[in-house]
């Protein structure tokens, strides 16, 4: 079966997941993002690429950073951006996702940026658009359930490449609540596709999926052992809102064993970088001294995220 995110010519039609995307496409997105970073330094911080296009932000789940950076990215590309406030919209009155999509298509939508609590919702939209003969309308997954958050994965790769230049000699550790994290899945697929030789996941047994080893990662339950000699630490947010039942005794205990402190970080390489997708729970998964310390690249991640999203939107709109 053809990858549903690619056109028949192998170009990116939608961005739904990093899983299954060839390395050349990931590299092309990172390469294309680089010249977009320079736009922020101009007097007029706008490019005409999406002029006259309508981008609909459909956020069925809360988000501040992702929605805002998508909005800034689309506006810097001169698109018209429409943010739908779902909690007060027709969905709250009972409209289905696909009916919402049909209505927005009737309003001449060109691109959907969608976040949804259900894994696969953006796939469903892309399939529906194909079935309706609306292949010119593009879908970007801004996070679906526990499944994927591809632009976060890509901006993380851009950040790593910015600081480390090359992926092929790195040891990267992903730490924390892997079980509930769509970010972790996108990161793992991106890191392995781009040729990182050793990807580790670190966390308590209850928060690491039992079959995660199939993705080509090494599992550690002891944080100090897992952080030994790593080049990059990617922290995850402890997702209290996705936890049903008692997977953890308490946030305090989690911090004791898996919170990133300067003391634990000392096990990593001296030039280690520390990343976090936000929002951070200080004192739960990361200590303030590390979050604000010299190894943290958490705010540059946010800035790079705008350029990466501009690159993705431009590539989709041009294909």
């Amino acid at each position, binding site marked *: 079966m053809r990858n549903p995110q690619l056109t028949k010519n192998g170009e990116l039609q939608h961005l739904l997941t990093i899983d299954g995307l060839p390395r050349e496409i990931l590299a092309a997105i990172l390469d294309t993002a680089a010249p977009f970073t320079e736009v922020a330094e101009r007097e007029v911080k706008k*490019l*005409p690429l999406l002029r006259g296009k309508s981008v609909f932000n459909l956020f069925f789940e809360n988000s501040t950073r992702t929605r805002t950076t998508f909005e800034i990215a689309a506006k810097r590309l001169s698109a018209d951006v429409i943010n739908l406030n779902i909690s007060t919209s027709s969905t709250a009155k009972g409209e289905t996702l696909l009916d919402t999509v049909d209505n927005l298509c009737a309003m001449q939508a060109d691109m959907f940026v969608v976040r949804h609590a259900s894994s696969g919702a953006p796939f469903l939209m892309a399939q529906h658009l194909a079935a309706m003969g609306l292949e010119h309308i593009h879908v970007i997954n801004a996070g679906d359930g526990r499944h994927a958050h591809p632009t976060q994965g890509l901006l993380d790769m851009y950040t790593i490449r910015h600081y480390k230049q090359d992926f092929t000699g790195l040891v990267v550790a992903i730490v924390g609540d892997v079980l509930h994290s769509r970010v972790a899945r996108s990161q793992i697929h991106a890191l392995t596709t781009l040729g990182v030789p050793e990807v580790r996941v670190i966390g308590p047994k209850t928060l690491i999926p039992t079959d995660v080893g199939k993705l080509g990662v090494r599992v550690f339950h002891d944080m100090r052992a897992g952080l030994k000699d790593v080049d990059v630490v990617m922290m995850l947010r402890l997702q209290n809102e996705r936890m049903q039942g008692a997977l953890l005794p308490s946030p305090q205990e989690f911090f004791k064993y898996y919170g990133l402190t300067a003391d634990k970080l000392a096990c990593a390489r001296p030039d280690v970088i520390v990343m976090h997708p936000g929002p951070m729970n200080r004192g739960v998964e990361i200590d303030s001294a590390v979050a604000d310390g010299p190894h943290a690249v958490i705010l540059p991640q946010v800035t790079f995220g705008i350029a990466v999203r501009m690159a993705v939107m431009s590539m989709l709109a*041009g294909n």
Partner: protein
Amino acid sequence: MPLPDAERLCAALADSLRPGLHPDTALIGIHTGGVWVAERLHAALGLKTSLGSLDVSFYRDDFSRSGLHSQIKSSDIPFEVKDRPIVIVDDVLYTGRTIRAAMNEIFDYGRPARIDLAVLVDRGGRELPVCPRWSAQALQIEPGKNLQLERSKAGVLSLRLIDA
């Protein structure tokens, strides 16, 4: 048809620019061939303002038809554009669409005092009202052919005619 020597054209172009330059004049080369020519001019003219470069991919008028190509360079304008005389430098002037895109991009950095255009070769075939102030050579090239500037490993510039 024998093509003219690109290095000789660069030298001739520098000579024709020299009398028309202001002390604040800045050169902006268009990727990739235009940047090579601009480097030659910048050295020959001894300009004090750093050289600028543009990749006009983000401003092209055929984006919706052909999308983005993969190897886009960053534009680099290392000087204040506002109130400065600017010379756009390109290797081959054809339809004029690249120059329009370049002018649009320059205005996003500020309002220049003026913009002039210097090209190595004017091959005719304009589709927009664009006219170079300086052109080292006019050549009639049939449609369907591309005149391309190339740079050897030793850094020598030469012109080549290829099928479009």
